């Protein structure tokens, strides 16, 4: 039953992810990305991580992607300007080389996945994935990464302001 839901969602995610890079218009790419985020949230739900799923929607699909759209609107991007990018020979070789590499790696991953013994998943405790459990582990086992992450965000924020502020004194 779970696999029945998983495969369509996963397939949709992959298709949308491809859509992100194959789309010529930035808006289309962004829309595909939003769809993929929602699909990921669905996969989190299947993993019983409801809280993470909701966060995924709120933060990625709801906040970050809105800012993406915001930027697209501000720049009023219509079509990707670099249509001639693909046609150059040098890039063609690089494309072939990297895709060969990527296909090799993907093949290996698929291979490994099929080799792995998919034994039945472990029984989860009732409290798994609830806000309280996530919060508790965040403030006990992972308190240091949690705090350090705030430093990271501070640095990123200062950086954004420094680079974007119209006039620095």
């Amino acid at each position, binding site marked *: 039953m779970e696999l029945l839901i998983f495969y369509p969602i996963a397939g949709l995610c992959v298709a949308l992810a491809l859509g992100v890079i194959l789309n010529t*218009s930035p808006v289309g790419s962004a829309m595909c990305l939003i769809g993929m985020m929602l699909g990921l949230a669905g996969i989190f739900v299947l993993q019983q991580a*409801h809280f993470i799923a909701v966060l995924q929607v*709120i933060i990625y699909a*709801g906040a970050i*992607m*809105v800012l993406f759209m*915001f930027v697209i*609107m*501000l720049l009023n991007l219509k079509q990707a300007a670099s249509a001639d990018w693909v046609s150059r020979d040098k890039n063609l070789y690089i494309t072939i080389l990297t895709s060969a590499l990527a296909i090799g790696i993907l093949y290996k991953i698929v291979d490994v996945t099929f080799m792995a013994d998919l034994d039945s998943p472990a029984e989860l405790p009732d409290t798994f994935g609830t806000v309280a459990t996530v919060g508790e582990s965040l403030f006990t086992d992972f308190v240091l990464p949690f705090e350090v992450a705030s430093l990271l965000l501070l640095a990123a924020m200062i950086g954004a302001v420094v680079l974007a502020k119209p006039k620095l004194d």
Partner: protein
Amino acid sequence: MDWITEFLDELWDFIVQSLADNIPLIVGSVKAVVIAVAVMSVVPFLVWLERRLMGRFQVRLGPNRVGPFGFGQPMADTIKLLFKESIIQTSADKFLFHLAPAVVVFTAIVAFAVIPFGAPFEIFGQNIELWGANINSGILFVFAISGMGIYGMVIAGLSSNNKYSLMGGLRSSAQMISYELTLGLSALSIILLTGSLSLVDMVKAQETVPFILIQPLAFLLFFIAGVAETNRAPFDLPEAEQELVAGFHTEYTGMKFAMFFMGEYINMVTMSALVTLLFLGGWNSYGIPVWPIVSFAAKVVFLLCVFIWLRSTFPRIRYDRLMTFGWKVLLPLCLLNLLITGTIKVM
């Protein structure tokens, strides 16, 4: 003929059996349909209410010719909109142009799914709960879905290929992001008090005292941010008629145009319901002998009237003021409130 009756018998047994096995599923689907239909049919009533009330506020009559008290007016409007020719200008992005209104209405209805509007009761031996789904992080779900609702406006603004639409879309996304923070943070103080994200638990926690008395500041902030989130006056900058023609839905006609308004009105209902649940004690009636659902509905209708009242009282605020107000007044107040609430809770 025997085999036919036998087959029918078997089929009947099978249907009864599978129905008996799947009662929760059936109840759920029925609830989903009922809620969706109810929410959508509230819209015409709300339109009528708004126009009549606005008329009264402005010392005029409002629509009163079609049917008793003008009740037929929304119906007539709907018929007109349905039969109106749908115009799409050639430079628009067709797919996104059609998608946008659908997103708006869809997210608005889905957000309502987790809103509980009464205490559970027993019928035919089944425990019927008056909510679509009791997700244990209900309030987060509402925020997540209403966050997705922004895309409707953004996409409408982008796909119309019109500068007024674009400006409207830009404004709406900026406004929604800014005020969503306030909305979430002021709800957080209620979450702190109840220790749960479930809306049902929140109502249960208010059996003696509604949270509006404990958290008046949070209520005020939440309500202001809620008005801004639903793009209602005085925060209706995305569709400011005087500067942007009609904002993000300038290019829309017919039913697609109406769908944006449906979305807006449903969001209004959802927001009123949320305020009721979070601050006004939900279906608790505090001694007044009415059914829980009536108590809930009365509070929601009252809040809807306040929405309309606000619209006819306040002038629209300037865009930069809106942003300044959101980031420099509401947000710090929210954080302060949260800090104080947290401190009291810990001590």
